[in-house]
C-alpha cells in the first residue's frame, strides 16, 4: 500500500527524518512510535504531501507520489488527521464532516447524509448541530477522524488521535479504530498511548531522532533493546536485564 524509500528531510541544520524506509502492506493496522521529537509527524507530512522531502521517494499503491499535493493524495484515497486538531471552527459538526464527504459526493444533500452516517460511526451522532468550536478535545479528535473517514480513504494516517483523552475516552475510541481497520482501510497511527498500540497494531515501527531503529510486532518491538534505550536512556536495557537476573 505505502512504501517509503530512504526518505530524508532536514529543517535548517536539523535532520528531522533521516533515511527512513518502510513498507506498509495493505489492510495492515500499523503504528509509528518513538519518543517526542523523533520526527513522526514530519514523516506524516512527507507521506501526505504537506512537505517535500529533501531526498527519497514515497510510493502509494505502486505510484510515485513524492511531493505531490495533499489534495491530490486525498483524492487517491490517502487521508490524514492532524496532531493539533484543525476543525472548521465556524461550521457545525455535520458541515465539517460533509466537507470530507464531498470528496466522493458532489451533491450537498448526499454529503450531509453521509456525514450523519460517519458521525454515528465515531460516536458524534448526538452532536451534529454543534459548532465545532464548542466540542471538547475528545469530540474534536473524533471530528478529525470522522472528517478523514468521510473521504472514503484506502489509507488512513492518524496522528495521535488518542492524545489528550482520558482512559474512558480512549477505551471508547479503540473499537472505533478497530472497526475502521476491519472495514478494509489500511491504517497507520502515530501513538504514544501504549495500551492502544499493543491492542491494535499488527506492525510497529519505531522512530528515534529521525531514524528508524526497530520494526516488528508490538511484542518484538517492546523487547528490543534499542527501543528501550530510545525511551529510557542509554544503558537502561542492560540495567533492566541485570535487575531481572538478580531477582
Amino acid at each position, binding site marked *: 500500500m505505502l512504501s517509503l524509500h530512504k526518505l530524508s528531510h532536514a529543517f535548517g541544520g536539523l535532520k528531522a527524518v533521516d533515511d527512513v524506509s518502510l513498507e506498509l502492506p495493505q489492510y495492515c493496522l500499523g503504528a509509528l512510535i518513538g519518543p517526542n521529537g523523533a520526527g513522526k509527524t514530519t514523516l506524516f507530512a512527507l507521506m501526505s504531501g504537506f512537505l517535500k522531502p529533501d531526498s527519497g521517494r514515497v510510493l502509494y499503491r505502486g505510484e510515485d507520489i513524492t511531493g505531490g*499535493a495533499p489534495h491530490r493524495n486525498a*483524492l487517491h484515497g490517502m487521508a490524514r488527521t492532524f496532531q493539533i486538531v484543525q*476543525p*472548521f471552527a465556524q461550521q457545525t459538526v455535520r458541515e465539517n464532516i460533509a466537507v470530507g464527504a464531498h470528496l466522493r459526493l458532489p451533491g*450537498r444533500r448526499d454529503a450531509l447524509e453521509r456525514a450523519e452516517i460517519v458521525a454515528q460511526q465515531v460516536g458524534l451522532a448526538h*452532536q451534529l448541530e*454543534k459548532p465545532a468550536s*464548542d466540542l471538547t478535545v475528545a469530540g474534536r479528535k473524533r471530528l478529525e477522524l470522522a472528517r478523514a473517514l468521510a473521504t472514503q480513504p484506502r489509507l488512513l494516517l492518524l496522528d495521535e488521535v488518542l492524545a489528550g483523552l482520558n482512559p474512558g475516552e480512549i477505551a471508547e475510541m479503540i473499537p472505533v479504530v478497530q472497526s475502521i481497520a476491519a472495514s478494509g482501510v489500511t491504517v497507520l497511527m502515530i501513538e504514544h498511548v501504549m495500551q492502544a498500540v499493543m491492542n491494535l497494531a499488527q506492525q510497529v515501527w519505531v522512530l528515534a531522532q529521525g531514524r528508524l531503529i526497530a520494526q516488528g510486532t508490538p511484542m518484538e518491538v517492546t523487547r528490543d533493546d534499542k527501543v528501550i534505550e530510545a525511551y529510557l536512556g542509554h544503558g537502561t536495557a542492560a540495567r533492566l536485564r541485570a535487575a531481572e537476573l538478580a531477582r
Partner: protein
Amino acid sequence: MKDLGCIALFALIVACVPLVTSSGVALNFTMMALYACLLAQAWNILGGFGGQFSFGHALFFGTGAYVQAIAQLQGLNPWLALPLALAASALVALFVGALTFRYGLKGSYFALVTLAFAEVFRIVSLSVSFTGAGVGLMVPLRASASNMQFASRAGYVWLVLAMVVVALLVTAWLRHSRFGAYLQAVRDNEDAARAVGVDPFRVKLAAIALSAALMGAGGAFYVQVFQYIDPGIAYGPGTSVEALVAAIVGGMGTLWGPVVGAVALHLLADLTRNLFGQLPGINMVIYGVVLVLIMMFAPRGIAGFGLPARWRRLRGKRNG
C-alpha cells in the same frame, strides 16, 4: 428551499416599490440602497465566504465600469457591453488571484496587495488616454430600455434589483453547494481542507473571479445611471470601503448580512445628510466609526449577532 423562498419574496416586494410610489426620493433611495447591496454582496463572496479580505475591491468595480463605458463609446449596445464588463473584471481578478494565491498571500498581505493593485490601476488610468485620463469618460444620454438607460428611476431600480437577485442566488448557492462548502473550508482552515481533497488555489481563484464579476456589474450599473466615470470614482478607496463596511456590518459570510448592512448604512448616511447637510466626507466618517464600533462590540455584524448562531447553540445544548 427556504433561501429561495426568501429571495423570491424579497424580489417581489422590492419590485413593487416603483409600482406603488413615484416619489423621486423613495425611488432614488431604493436604487442606491440596492446598488450598495450589490457591492457588499460581491465583497462578501470573497471576504465573508472565502475569508480573503480585499481592501481594493474597487479594482473590479472600476474595470467593469470602464469597459462598459469604453465599449459603448465604441458603438456597442450596453446590453452587449455588460457581459464584456463582467468578463473583464473576472479576468483582472484571475490575474491578481493567480499571482497572490500562487504565492500563498493571506490576511494583511492580501489586503495590502489588493489595495496596491487598485492604486496602480487608478494612477495608470489617470495617465492613459483611452480612459479619458483625469477627465474621465462620459456616456451620451439616450434614455431607452434598449440602451440600458431609463427615463424614470423605476427602470434602474428593476435593473439593479435583477443584479442583486443574481448575487443573492449565487450566495445561496454557496450555502448549499460543494463549492461553497469547499470555499468556507479553505476560509476556516486551509491545511485541513487540503487534507480532505480541497484544492485551495482553484477554489480561491473561482471565488475571486465570481466576486469580481458581481463587482464589475456594479461598475457597469454605475456608468448607466450616472453616465460618467473617472479614475477616482472607478478605483478610489470610496467604493472599496463602502463594499466591505456594509458586508461586515451586516454580517460576513451570511446570505442577508450584506443586504442588511448596506441598507442600514444607507439609512444612516441619509439620516446624517438630513441632520448635517451635504458635508464632504461626513459619510465616510460615519462608515469608519461604525466599522470601528462593530469590530469592538459585534464583530460578527448585525446578522451574526443574532438568531442563527444562538439557535444552533440552544439546539446543540439540548442534544449534546
